[in-house]
């Protein structure tokens, strides 16, 4: 009997969302097949990689990162340098210093820095703004930065349960930018936040999901099963409240675990700290891409190039 390859019924599609303007604009989502299932149908837009730049200097960074950014003297210069990394599709500017428990940089200063960086970057690459992890501060910060970057079509990461009303109203409605809805590996909250942000008037087509992440090995199976269930609801059950592309910050998770921070002097049998950090970042990124992330954020230029090469080989 001849073998007939079963052709799965095409599912509903993930929304296609554009960030950035001009030559550097990128599209996320749009596919109606499972991740990398090129044999089932076209992957409309290959997954994209963002390179993370903090507004703080890289004091504790591995040598490779320091070397890459050598000679840069401002956030704007680092952003431009990051954009040149091989395989980087967009740049994630992270306002780490805005944290009230840290340097507590004012939102006005952040907006000034963001504007300077965006102007230096021009239309060459899309920009994503990452908050300080403090919900109250981020609401204020995003409002000022969104106002400073009008017409740049920027994605803001993220609106959370604690601040979604303010963030959706300013970023999504007043300044018509893109909003990421963040939940911490909680599938029901992921859906709920999308519904709530949409009920405020932000179109589903302008929402990205950040469903949370973990470093590989650190409760990671919950991340994977959450992504699987979301993609299944979006495509097989045509759940329009879950058809947003998924953006997953990887670097902020993986560069904080012991595999990436223990020095070789403390753990001689583990080998080079930098190599371990890159491995953790690459492994985690590839796993979430295989589970449905449409974009990831990575820090090390080598990780960016490695994951980019993998995506190019598969899609």
């Amino acid at each position, binding site marked *: 009997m001849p073998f007939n390859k079963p052709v799965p019924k095409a599912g509903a599609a993930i929304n296609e969302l554009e960030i950035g303007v001009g030559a550097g604009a990128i599209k996320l989502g749009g596919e109606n097949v499972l991740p990398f299932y090129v044999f089932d149908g076209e992957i409309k837009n290959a997954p994209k990689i963002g390179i993370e730049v903090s507004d703080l200097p890289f004091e504790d960074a591995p040598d490779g990162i320091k070397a890459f950014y050598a000679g840069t003297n401002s956030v704007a210069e680092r952003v431009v340098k990051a954009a040149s990394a091989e395989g980087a599709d967009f740049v994630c500017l992270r306002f780490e210093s805005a944290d009230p428990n840290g340097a507590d940089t004012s939102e006005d200063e952040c907006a000034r820095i963001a504007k300077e960086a965006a102007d230096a970057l021009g239309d060459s690459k899309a920009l994503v703004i990452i908050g300080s992890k403090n919900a109250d501060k981020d609401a204020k910060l995003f409002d000022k930065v969104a106002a400073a970057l009008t017409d740049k079509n920027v994605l803001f990461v993220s609106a959370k349960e604690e601040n979604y009303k303010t963030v959706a109203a300013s970023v999504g409605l007043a300044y018509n930018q893109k909003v990421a809805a963040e939940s911490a590996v909680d*599938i*029901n*909250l992921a*859906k*709920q936040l999308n*519904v*709530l942000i949409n*009920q405020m008037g932000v179109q589903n087509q302008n929402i990205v999901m950040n469903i949370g992440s973990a470093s590989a090995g650190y409760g990671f199976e919950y991340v994977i099963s959450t992504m699987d*269930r*979301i993609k299944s*609801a979006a495509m097989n*059950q045509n*759940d329009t*409240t*879950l058809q947003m592309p998924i953006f997953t910050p990887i670097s902020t998770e993986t560069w904080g675990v012991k595999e990436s921070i223990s020095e070789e002097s403390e753990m001689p049998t583990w080998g080079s700290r930098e190599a371990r950090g890159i491995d953790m970042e690459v492994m985690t990124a590839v796993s979430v891409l295989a589970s449905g992330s449409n974009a990831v954020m990575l820090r090390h230029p080598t990780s960016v190039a490695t994951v980019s090469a993998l995506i190019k080989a598969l899609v």
Partner: protein
Amino acid sequence: MAKFITIGERIHCISPVIREAMNTKTPEPILKRAKEQLDAGASYLDVNIGPAENNGPELMQWAVKLIQENFDNVPLALDTANRSAIEAGIQVYNRAKGKPIVNSADAGDRIENIDLAAANDAIAIALCSREGVPGSVEERQGFCMELLERGLSLGMDSDDLWFDPLFLVIKGMQDKQKEVLETIAWFAEQGFKSTGGLSNVSNGMPKHIRPIMDSIMVSMAIQAGLTSAIVNPCDTRLMEAVKSADIINNETLYADSYLEI
């Protein structure tokens, strides 16, 4: 399995407002009822134009175009005893959001509505009765097989036959309710889709009782395997039951706002 399908029953010429709107071709009352039902979560809308002996085809075409053009090609059930009106309606029907439903065929005088659905690639509601109320589960099964064979012989997919067990009024036929549920369970065992005029069960009951009875009946019927029902989607309690059943059956992912979407 899939999400439970609700067919909104409120565009019906038995309502004086709708009858008048159909007589005078006044869009507003029809559009208003369509919107209310869709906002309440109806998947399909039933369009009942009555016997429409004089102007059936023209009236059905007007109604189909009116509703689909105003509501993003919402899928419709075309409901009339006038066969040429159903055919005319299908000619102008837009399938972007789903096939048209022929409402309805039975194992008696209206069996040719199966042929009509087959010829037009439509879904048919197949009422498992001939004349009057079927006497037993077995009788319903017999009618079901008759309707199925006719559909299959004409090239229909069994998924396009939605079998109706014939919901019966509790006040008067209380002893028949279990038969209806058993018939639904048998449909589900065969893998058949099913639907029916669910609110029949509460006919004649006080207004405040009907939503209670209908919502419990729909829950029990869904558990038995019912895949769709013709209902009043503006009945909040009923829709709460349907949406909650979809959650419990894992057909839709839970979120705190699930009743609002």
